[in-house]
Structures are given as structure tokens and as C-alpha cells.
């Protein structure tokens, strides 16, 4: 029960899997500039993330950002592993990708993603996008909204 709506939680646990070091760094800088209190863990690819998530007794992230194109295990495979694992299924999943193909986007939502973000190419837009995603995720995390219907595209 790591992710039941919890009004007393003050810090949002966030994980990011992205194989590009610069992108990970920019993401960290952006999330640190946002007012909301967060704790970010980063992973170099999908396999590293999944190895971490399936460790015993860890505090699961509230929200996971997945890059789609990663070596070893890509974002789509991670997404399906997460949605097929009852212990992980309560996490919100955001796909974070440069692809803007409508087909890709629909496919990630159908496979259980909650959020789709087109990677912006400018830092202030990135910060703004992450902020919006964190805000909406916070509402789902702390209010009585139906999570089955949590879809958000930015």
C-alpha cells in the first residue's frame, strides 16, 4: 500500500530512467527548481530501474518517468513489466520521449501509461512541463479521483 491517497505525505518520490546523461542532469536541475518537495532517483536504463523497483522493502516512487528509447530494456518494456506486477501497479507512470507519433502515444496509454510528455528542447519549457505533471499527479495522489482514468498529455 505504498501509493494509496495519502494526505500527510510531504515529499513526492520520483524516479527517472533515461540513458542520456545530459537529459538526466537537465531533468534533475528542472525538478530542483520546482517549489514542490521531491526526492529524485535516476537510473541509466530500464533494467537498472526494474532491478531497483523489485528490491525487497524499498519505498516505491509515487511517479516514474520513462524514456522510450533506452538500451537493454526500453521504456515500453518497463511500462508493461510495471503494469503486470501487482506490487508495482499502483505507481503512476509518465512516458518522457522525443517521439511525437500519435501511434506511439496512443500505444503507451493503452499499455497503461498515465502521462505522456514530449521532451521539450528548451529548459524553461521542460521545467514547466515537469511542474504541471507533478501538480496533476499530486491531485491524484491526495484526492479521491479515479486513477483508472488518469491520462494526461503535455
Amino acid at each position, binding site marked *: *500500500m505504498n*501509493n*494509496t*491517497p*495519502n*494526505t*500527510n505525505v510531504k515529499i513526492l518520490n520520483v524516479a527517472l530512467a533515461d540513458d542520456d546523461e545530459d537529459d538526466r542532469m537537465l531533468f534533475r536541475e528542472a525538478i530542483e527548481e520546482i*517549489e*514542490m518537495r521531491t526526492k529524485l532517483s535516476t537510473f541509466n536504463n530500464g533494467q537498472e530501474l526494474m532491478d531497483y523497483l523489485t528490491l525487497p522493502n524499498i519505498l516505491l516512487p509515487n511517479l516514474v518517468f520513462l524514456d522510450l528509447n533506452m538500451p537493454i530494456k526500453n521504456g515500453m518494456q518497463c511500462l508493461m513489466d510495471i*503494469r503486470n506486477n501487482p506490487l508495482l*501497479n*499502483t505507481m503512476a*507512470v509518465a512516458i518522457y520521449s522525443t517521439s511525437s507519433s500519435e501511434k506511439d502515444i*496512443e500505444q503507451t*496509454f*493503452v*499499455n*497503461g501509461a*498515465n502521462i*505522456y510528455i514530449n521532451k521539450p528542447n528548451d529548459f524553461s519549457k521542460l521545467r514547466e512541463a515537469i511542474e504541471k505533471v*507533478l*501538480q*496533476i499527479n*499530486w*491531485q491524484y495522489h*491526495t*484526492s*479521491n*479521483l*479515479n*486513477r*483508472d*482514468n*488518469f*491520462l*494526461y*498529455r*503535455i
Partner: protein
Amino acid sequence: MRVCIKYDSDFICRAVLKEQFEELGIPFNIHSLGELEINEHLSAEQRSALIAALKKYGIEIIDDPKMALVQRIKYAIDDMLEDDMAKLQKISTYLADKLNYSYTYLSNLFSESTYTSIENFIILRKVDHAKELITNTDLTLTEIAYRLNYSSVAHLSGQFKKTTGLTPTAFQKIIEKRKQNSIRPA
């Protein structure tokens, strides 16, 4: 075999509370959903047993009085959206009357504690309601717009798109496909 169920979360919550309090032998009264009174002093053990018992159902005791008021604002918003008469009133008047605080106070407190405003939260709640109706009923968008007190379908669609980044039709298509694949993110 696929079975559809209908449920009332208010009813479920009351039933769970009754069951758990009776099991621990703690006398209580439910005032309104989100607030109840315990008729005796709880020992530290009783209190932690109660917290553990309720946690299984995702129910929490809110210690911080400000957070408790934020929660009451959210419940009042839900009541307001379900009440046909309340729709005629201004949000600010409705909430101030119901909760006995000035709207300015409520509005500032809400924004400080939730990373959103009361107005935005109401939009989110209405869109959430629209999503339920889109996925669980055969109502048309026009009927849904009317039922949720939107001035037009265009207004509903616009707010839906702005809040979710998706059109109501795209949303519906994704949920349909998920049902076919039996994918249910929690």
C-alpha cells in the same frame, strides 16, 4: 467472464469504519463523511491499532487541522457538484456558508496546501466525473455536458482537452482498448 459492478464509495466507507471500530471496541459517531467523533479517550495502543486497521483500507486519520480543513473543502466540493440546487449558487458563497470560514481564507489555505486552486480543483473533479460518464454510460457528450452543468458541448470538450491534453474521443478510445487488453493501472 467479465462482470460489471456498481458501488457507492460513501456507503463502503461507512461500512468499513463501523466494522473496524466495532472490532476494536471503540464507540464512535460519524458526523459527516470525513469527520467522526470518538466517544472515549484512546490509549496509545488503541490509537495505533486503529491507525493500522484503517490503513489497510486507505483510510487515514488527519492530525494537522489545516489538512483536515482542506479535506473538508474537497468533500464540500463533491457535495456541491452533486447537488442541483447548489449549482445555482456561487462557489465562494456555497463553500463559505457550508464551512463557516471566509472564502479568502479557504482559498488561500487550499492553494498553499495542494499545489492547485479551488477553481482548478473543481475543474479537475468535473472532468473526472465526465470521464466516468464517458466510460461507464452510453450518454452522449451533449447529455454529459448538460448533466455536469456546462453551457455547451464545446465548453466541456475545451475544458477536457485543457485538463487532460486529450480530446474526449481520444480518451474514450484509449480506455476501450485498455478494456479489450484487460490493462488496469491502479
